[in-house]
């Protein structure tokens, strides 16, 4: 089913839907029933497909008169599996084959505002909403059949998109339903009493449904945001400051203005060009960049990062509230962990194509936040929100790094100046320098043990990196966790699992140190303090699969094993690692990872395995090699040559086990699988070397003193 991108209206009217998708049945969902993060009152009211008004209803399911089914959702697809999952759950409730459903994602002109694609929210929140919309359509089909055939609803069956009355061999399809509906507006939101399929009756959910448009990925047919081409399109580039905080004091635009077919835009410190080829745009920009004078400001360097964060902690560092008890403890321990700045580095840099049609703006861009970017564009370009349409094609990775509309705003500004559509894509250097980073942090932990080796008090202070997974899941009578803000030298934002990476690292490394102080095995120590049944389950399962108790007895030179566990966003993970360490060279190789993951009832085991594999390998980067280096207000390792992400050579043996809990609600899984790898590796490094590394990335001092 083709959706024309020629329609520039910001929000389709009902008639627009009819024109686009054909007459038929539209099932709506109200703003309050979805995770709408953009509340627009008054002048900017968006209004959904039924027009403006307080109770806006957006379209969730459309059934055309020929039976074609379209489902609409505000989530995006960036490799994390939303397209397969949302198609799959709609197919389940509609009782129809997956390939009969066309899923439109993340077009603000067509879909409900389901909120940002972040926070592992698609599974727990958007899936129920899509299921309810699809189930409502199924219920309507049942009601139609019951009425037409004058039979009871429970005497009919829905299967393969048809409803049958077995006794009388009568049959109706969704096409028949749509033909009945004609143009009667379906103004109410999905009824509250809609029943979705119970887990023990799942036929499609719970199976590994493939990504529907995967063929287009292997043929190169899929158009990523950076592939979108519009008639008469130019390529844009924006002038970047030489360092953070630098102000433009003088510039001569005439070298670019003199170039044929190059448009130049300036608005204060914003300077950009648009040209018929990217090559020419680069040349034009380089020509003006040469003439620019900047006033730079001092900026801390990464070498001073952790001291800087501590010194600038807002309201100082909090004292341990349990200091008195700690003084009386049989043993006490205090450690400080350092977490570096890292970046998401999605393979597709942020990119946008912006096109104006009068005062209406359409932007294709890769963002996790389509409606947020719609607002951002409206504000930046001074137009009404309902004059802006954001379309998010399935794009090349987000990982928490594409929440903002930087490229979208830049493309829109240049398109306005150039009077033609502009495609703008950041370079990798721009990504490394001007996109945002996972916050760095200093994490201080202090705990006491009694004579039996039980933890008595626990104090966790996170400076700057964030509060996710800050609270300990272990049973400790006196525990306190605090997040302290600081002055951040780099632009900060979300990252996969946010600070749960750093906080889980610090906690799980510290737990191993406490275990050693208590003379206890790391697994036994954790289990002795663990009442959370779901966390116990994954920890015990991974220890068994990995043969923890057998392996800890093996003393192979240079080989170490370690474990870690944690919970975040309603899911649970436990990880065992086997590493090989060459202390002389300071090299750590991960040989094997065993991970057990539990997120309630598993919706798509294929994608879930994929997310676990991907998160583990991605996490290896943050665990072992990734860190931003900056000096003089600029990133000094702004390249894949010097910022080392995981590659094929790094892939260990992977054993991933999904612990399915059909009795529990389904939680999201895009983030939590990453949090166990770094601490498991650090603990394994200790096992192999007797050396505790309390920083991410985990780096061994090189014993032959060659220095860094």
């Amino acid at each position, binding site marked *: 089913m083709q959706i024309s991108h020629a329609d520039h209206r910001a929000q389709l009217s009902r008639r627009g839907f009819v024109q686009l998708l054909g007459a038929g049945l539209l099932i709506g969902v109200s703003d309050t029933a979805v995770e709408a993060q953009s509340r627009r009152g008054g002048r900017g009211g968006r209004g959904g497909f039924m027009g403006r008004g307080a109770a806006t209803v957006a379209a969730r399911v459309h059934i055309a008169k020929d039976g074609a089914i379209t489902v609409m959702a505000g989530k995006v697809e960036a490799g994390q599996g939303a397209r397969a999952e949302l198609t799959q759950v709609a197919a389940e409730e509609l009782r129809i084959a997956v390939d009969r459903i066309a899923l439109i994602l993340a077009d603000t002109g067509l879909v409900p505002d389901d909120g940002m694609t972040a926070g592992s929210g698609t599974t727990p929140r958007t899936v129920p909403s899509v299921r309810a919309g699809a189930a409502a359509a199924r219920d309507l089909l049942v009601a139609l059949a019951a009425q037409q055939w004058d039979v009871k609803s429970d005497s009919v069956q829905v299967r393969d998109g048809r409803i049958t009355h077995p006794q009388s061999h009568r049959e109706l399809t969704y096409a028949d339903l749509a033909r009945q509906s004609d143009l009667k507006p379906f103004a109410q939101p999905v009824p509250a009493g809609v029943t979705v399929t119970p887990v023990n009756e799942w036929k499609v959910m719970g199976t590994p449904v493939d990504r529907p448009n*995967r063929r287009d990925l292997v043929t190169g047919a899929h158009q990523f945001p950076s592939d979108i081409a519009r008639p008469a399109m130019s*390529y844009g580039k924006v002038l970047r400051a030489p360092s953070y905080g630098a102000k433009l004091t003088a510039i001569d635009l005439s070298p670019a203005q003199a170039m044929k077919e190059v448009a130049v835009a300036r608005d204060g410190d914003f300077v950009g060009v648009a040209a018929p080829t990217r090559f020419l745009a680069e040349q034009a920009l380089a020509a003006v960049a040469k003439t620019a004078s900047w006033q730079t400001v001092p900026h801390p360097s990464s070498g001073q990062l952790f001291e800087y964060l501590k010194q600038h902690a807002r309201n100082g560092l909090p004292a341990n509230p349990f200091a008195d008890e700690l003084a009386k403890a049989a043993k006490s321990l205090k450690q400080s962990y350092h977490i570096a700045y890292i970046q998401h580095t999605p393979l597709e*840099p942020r990119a946008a194509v912006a096109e104006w049609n009068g005062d209406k703006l359409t932007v294709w861009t890769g963002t996790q936040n389509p409606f947020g970017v719609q607002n951002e564009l409206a504000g930046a370009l001074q137009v009404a929100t309902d004059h802006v349409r954001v379309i998010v094609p399935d794009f090349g*990775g987000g990982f928490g790094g594409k929440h903002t509309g930087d490229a979208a705003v830049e493309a829109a500004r240049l398109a306005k100046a150039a009077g033609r559509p502009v495609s703008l894509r950041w370079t990798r250097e721009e990504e490394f320098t001007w996109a945002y980073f996972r916050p760095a942090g200093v994490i201080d932990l202090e705990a006491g043990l009694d004579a039996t080796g039980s933890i008595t008090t626990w104090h966790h202070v996170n400076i700057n990196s964030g509060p996710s997974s800050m609270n300990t899941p272990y049973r400790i009578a006196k525990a306190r966790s605090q997040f302290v803000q600081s002055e951040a030298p780099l632009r900060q934002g979300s990252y996969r699992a946010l600070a749960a990476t750093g906080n889980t690292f610090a906690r799980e490394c510290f737990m191993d140190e406490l275990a050693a102080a208590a003379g206890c095995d790391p697994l036994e120590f954790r289990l002795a303090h663990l009442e959370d049944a779901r966390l116990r389950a994954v920890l015990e399962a991974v220890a068994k699969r990995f043969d923890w108790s057998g392996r800890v007895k093996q003393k192979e030179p240079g080989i170490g094993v370690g474990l870690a566990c944690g919970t975040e966003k309603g899911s649970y993970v436990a990880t065992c690692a086997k590493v090989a360490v060459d202390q002389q060279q300071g090299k750590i190789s991960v040989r094997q990872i065993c991970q057990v993951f539990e997120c309630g009832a598993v919706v798509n085991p294929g994608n879930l395995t994929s997310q676990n594999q991907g998160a583990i390998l991605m996490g290896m980067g943050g665990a072992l090699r990734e860190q931003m280096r900056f000096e003089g207000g600029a990133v000094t390792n702004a390249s894949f040559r010097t910022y080392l992400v995981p590659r094929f050579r790094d892939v260990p043996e992977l054993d991933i086990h999904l612990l399915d809990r059909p009795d529990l609600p389904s939680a999201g899984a895009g983030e939590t699988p990453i949090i166990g790898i770094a601490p498991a590796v650090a603990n394994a490094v200790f096992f192999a070397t007797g050396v505790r590394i309390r920083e991410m990335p985990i780096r061994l001092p090189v014993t032959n003193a060659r220095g860094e």
Partner: protein
Amino acid sequence: MGWLSVGPGQPMDAKLTFTVNGQKRDVTTDRDRPLLDVLREDLHLCGAKFGCGEGRCGACTVLVDGQRTFSCSTSVAEVEGKAVRTIEGLAQGDRLHPVQEAFLAENAFQCGYCTPGMVLTAVALLENNPHPSDKQIRQWMDGNLCRCCTYARILSAVRRAAG
């Protein structure tokens, strides 16, 4: 779709001829333009992608006279008279290349941005070495990045295609 009229008028323009996916193409453009840009902007073959611009990620991989090549770091002048193959030229109509089939069978992608580069890199390997060892596959593919980190399944796909 697409408009391009750099035209004669830009001082460094030259007329260059090479084949792309078996078809002879004439391009008039600056000799120093990256092949990647010419493929994407002039010839509307967007399968080859920009990932880093410095030959460190493999997203821009194409085959030039059978050799795996980073098109971001190759000027269009360098392929004059040569045969360029892109992802768009692998399938024969509806019949996918065995490497493409293997990637589908193993679901060797998540976001898919690295996929064209990965597929072509694997094609180059198998055309030169039809039965590589696991170690050879890993070493050969190491020049390509996957940020979704689908590495394990990509290795399975290449093994599968190698048969």
